[in-house]
């Protein structure tokens, strides 16, 4: 079952949350260049993480439609990955567009957080 997407927008960035049977997908769309993007992004990701644990769904963070992010945008992603590593019941896949050089550089570096138990996967497509 696929529910209607929920949309959250702050300035030039939209997060679209899609809950379906095996997973909860958060799509990042547009540009993230606010001074403190964590304030907008972290609560949405954190709620999705809680929801994923209670409903036994995986989380997919899809950045393929993200046009730009400043370095402060990386912080809430790192905090979510750290939480997933430290706590049980979370599985996160980060999906990025490998053909975009900046996405490949930014997101492939996150492979350092990939775990043997597949709790975190970084996938260029």
């Amino acid at each position, binding site marked *: 079952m696929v529910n209607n997407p929920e949309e959250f927008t702050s300035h*030039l960035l939209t997060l679209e949350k899609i809950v379906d049977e095996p997973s909860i997908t958060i799509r990042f769309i547009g*540009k993230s*260049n*606010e*001074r*403190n993007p*964590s*304030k907008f992004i*972290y609560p949405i990701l954190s709620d999705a993480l809680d929801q994923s644990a209670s409903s036994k769904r995986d989380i997919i963070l899809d950045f393929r439609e993200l046009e*730009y992010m*400043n*370095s*402060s945008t*990386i*912080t*809430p992603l*790192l*905090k979510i*990955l*750290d939480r997933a590593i430290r706590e049980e019941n979370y599985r996160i896949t980060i999906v990025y567009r490998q053909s975009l*050089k*900046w996405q490949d*550089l*930014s997101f492939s*570096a*996150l492979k*350092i*957080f990939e775990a043997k138990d597949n709790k975190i996967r970084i996938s260029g497509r």
Partner: protein
Amino acid sequence: MKLEIKPKWEDSDSVRDKSNDFLKAHGVSHDIAYALSMTACELFENAVKYGDFRSPDDTIYVTVEVSRNDIIIEVKSPAGEMSENLQQLDNTIQWIRGYQNPFQAYVEKLKEVSEKKLKEGESGLGLVRIAYEGQALVDFYVDENNVLAVSAVYQQ
């Protein structure tokens, strides 16, 4: 390209767009123009965050120069009494230079940030991202008028 801009965060997008357009107009490839306009944007954002803006006339100067051998991005802002920030800037630049490969510095910083508490508006990733994704050497000086100039140099 020379831009004279008020220290308003919302202008960072315009800095990036103008830098990108300028670089592409000077024959710089899409990927490098993207990485270096990100660099201009990160340096501008740092200037807005840490600049000592006391008068409404205080501005940030962004310069992008393309030459045969290199591309230089320089951002100037009032330094004021920011000795602690300058020390931090110096420490960060020296720390990045301590790594043979900026990728190693970047992943070390990713690990460090992931374990730290969320601090408002600060990631500490900007300069190391410039070194890694922008493939640029970062440096700075403070001139006789107490203006801080931070530069990123990309070797063509």
